[in-house]
């Protein structure tokens, strides 16, 4: 066996060496920009500097860069996460099928009622400081612009209520007390327990579903005092089976936790749409998904529209007021519905505005330039706490 043994050993050593060296070569020479599987910018290998070596940042960067850049890294992560999750869920299927009406922690995520991926309920201690800062930020704008009608719509979700006990930390109440808004200018999308949550939210995504977003739309119309009849759904259609949303993604359980993606069809009035200053055929791809011709993989954002810095909807009805919506991804599902009732509707996502439009968002000149009369501040708790969502000033 000697000559064969040598050959076999040589092949083994070279194969292993090639596996690792090719991985290193690819990571250095052909790095990826985006890590699609983890929905983020891919880490890359950077050159060392004395300071970064001494504080360990370089070493940590090499580890991160390799984990994103070696060949098939994302396939490996998918295999590991989904394989592991399937194995565990397979072992637990009997238990989960009983739909236990309490939180079950699993592999870093939480499951409620067997198949809802949920977040922990926030506590006031966790959010109070940032809520206060946001309120001060907004109150400053309210005071500076008495000519504008400001409205706030707070969207409760699983972070606002303990689905087991129904207890709520009182985030909306805190905001309602702290924001200097006239009576009737603030409302909330109320979630009081699993009954509301299960009906109005996706099981695998952190957004509201068609039922929730449509309820939100009607409540916002009522808040804004719009007297038009709301658009009525023409019907509902299941766009895809096996949809795995953002929560499944963040838990590494894409394809493991799935659900039907069902949406309402609407007969939207004609409107011109510009996205980040460029004319766009549509916002979102609802028709393409209904027709089965959409090229992008299905997601909440791809279906209803993404978190662009600025989207403008123009119905061409100069007799109607202009609306400014300063929000986040929850409003994506209702923007076109809402825009149907106004002349021009400007939607701004402060996280992306400067990057997309080339300059920071300046509230006063913006409302003046676009002849805004009504401003809608809309979002969930994260919107009212994350610094990225604060207006200037």
């Amino acid at each position, binding site marked *: *066996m000697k000559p064969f043994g040598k050959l076999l050993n040589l092949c083994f050593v070279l194969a*292993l060496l090639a*596996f690792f060296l090719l991985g*290193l070569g690819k990571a250095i020479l052909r790095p990826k920009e985006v890590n699609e599987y983890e*929905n983020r910018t891919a880490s890359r290998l950077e050159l060392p500097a004395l300071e970064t070596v001494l504080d360990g940042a370089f070493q940590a960067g090499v580890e991160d860069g390799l984990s994103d850049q070696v060949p098939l890294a994302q396939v490996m992560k998918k295999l590991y996460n989904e394989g592991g999750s399937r194995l*565990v869920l397979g072992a637990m299927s009997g238990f989960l099928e009983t739909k236990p009406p309490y939180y079950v922690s*699993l592999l870093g995520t939480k499951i409620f009622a067997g198949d809802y991926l949920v977040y922990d309920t926030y506590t006031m201690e966790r959010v109070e400081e940032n809520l206060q800062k946001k309120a001060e930020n907004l109150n400053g704008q309210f005071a500076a612009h008495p000519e504008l009608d400001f409205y706030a719509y707070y969207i409760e979700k699983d972070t606002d209520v303990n689905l087991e006990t129904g207890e709520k930390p009182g985030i909306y109440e805190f905001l309602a007390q702290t924001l200097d808004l006239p009576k009737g200018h603030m409302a909330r999308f109320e979630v009081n327990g699993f009954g509301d949550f299960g009906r109005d939210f996706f099981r695998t995504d952190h957004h509201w579903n068609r039922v929730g977003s449509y309820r939100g739309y009607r409540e916002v119309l009522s808040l804004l005092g719009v007297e038009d009849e709301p658009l009525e759904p023409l019907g509902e259609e299941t766009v895809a089976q096996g949809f795995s949303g*953002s929560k499944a993604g963040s838990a590494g359980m894409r394809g493991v936790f799935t659900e039907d993606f069902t949406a309402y069809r609407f007969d939207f009035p004609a409107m011109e749409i510009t996205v980040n200053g460029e004319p766009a055929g549509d916002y979102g791809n609802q028709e393409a998904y209904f027709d089965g011709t959409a090229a992008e993989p299905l997601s909440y954002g791809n279906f209803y529209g993404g978190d662009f810095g600025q989207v403008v909807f123009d119905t061409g009805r100069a007799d109607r007021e202009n609306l400014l919506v300063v929000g986040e991804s929850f409003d994506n599902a209702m923007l076109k519905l809402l825009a149907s009732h106004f002349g021009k509707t400007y939607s701004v996502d402060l996280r992306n505005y400067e990057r997309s439009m080339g300059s920071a968002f300046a509230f006063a000149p913006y409302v003046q330039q676009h002849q805004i009369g009504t401003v809608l501040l809309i979002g969930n708790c994260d919107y009212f706490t994350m610094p990225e969502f604060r207006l200037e000033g």
Partner: protein
Amino acid sequence: MVFSSLSFLYLFFPLCGLAYFLCRNRAWRNGVLLAFSLVFYAWGEPKNIILLLLASLTAYLCGLGLERWKPRPGLRRAVFLVGVVLLAGNLFVFKYLNFFCGNLGRAGLPVSVPEIALPIGISFYTFQILSYVIDLYRGEIQVQRNFFYLTLYVSFFPQLIAGPIVRYQTIEAEILERRESLEDISAGLRRFVLGLAKKVIIADNVGHIAEIIYKGEAEMYGSALYWLAAVAYALQIYFDFSGYSDMAIGMGRMFGFHFLENFNYPYMALSITDFWRRWHISLSTWFRDYIYIPLGGNRVKKSRWVLNLLAVWALTGFWHGAQWNFLLWGLYYGVILLVEKLWLGRLLDKCPKPARWLYAMVLVLVGWVIFNLTDFGQMSGALGMMFRFAPTDWAKVLAADASIVKGLLYLPLGLVFSAPLLPKLRARLPKDGWAGALVLAGENLVCLGLAVLSVIYVIGATYDFFIYFRF
């Protein structure tokens, strides 16, 4: 840097291997190993490299002094003592000073607690250096006159941060004269891959069980799960530590060094004496040869012998960490070994093997609970749960953290591979001829598969989804 990191697997290891085998000259090859070893250590703690070099320099100068003053025993002894005190003192300052000052402070003495971070691997490399100095003093080895070679021995990356504790005499000859062969390289690589798989596939996954149970509410988990936690921790620490030793031994072999074995299927032990012949062999033999025997071993009065044994085991426990539970753990084994040596050992010999095994494993599991839990309240609670019946509320257990199921799925793997099945299987397989070649091809394929699988586990664990990037 750890062996199971991507930086090691994709960057350090292949580059080191390439650089090493591209050099023809022994001195250059040693130079490559030294340079890579220093980078390896500095990768995790750039500043502590100075400490490691100073410790090596101390041993080097001490060695030269011992050699030079051979004809003057008094001076030689003084040099030896100074060297040992400096090296042991260095270990004491960086590993134990915080602990002692903290305890003195708690006892009411006006002592401030210094904030000293523990340098990685200091216990391992200090013991290696001490073995050099002591063996040299005893005349069992030749002095190393080349500082870089001595530093290579101290800092050689395969065994630097997690052992095994390689004595200078084990690799004294191989530093200058060793032969690397393709057979050694491939055998070393196979051993490395097996070690990596033990660590990332078994140890890291069964580890979750104990982690989840010990951080949860005691009453919820019940007796059965507390025993399970002890078993899981036993498997985790075995596959983690022996996996590292396998990787170190494998890498050493690739570069032509032959380290001694550090584990020999410890969970097959039939007594505690037997267990310690199989567990962390390089540490227990170090204490035997450098502490126990110099104290007189068993050739002293019984009372002194008892004292020696307990002192050695207290030190063994304390070597693992500056915490009271490690001291207790060491003394626990000291007492059991004492009892076995005095009378229980003879009784055990008459018992059937399953009973002896059960006896040993129960004591080992209790030992791991003591070792694992630094909080004495939690430790006594856990031990109490193991020895009184308390039912398990499975629904609550699963709700609290169902990830425990993942650990449970890996538990059978751990149980199976903690028995010597692989060596037994290998012994039965043909080694020569076509059949031998087929077996080798199969082994290589399995190892390639395990390497890829291990990388999947390492990369998979870095999953970091960003929910607000884009939808």
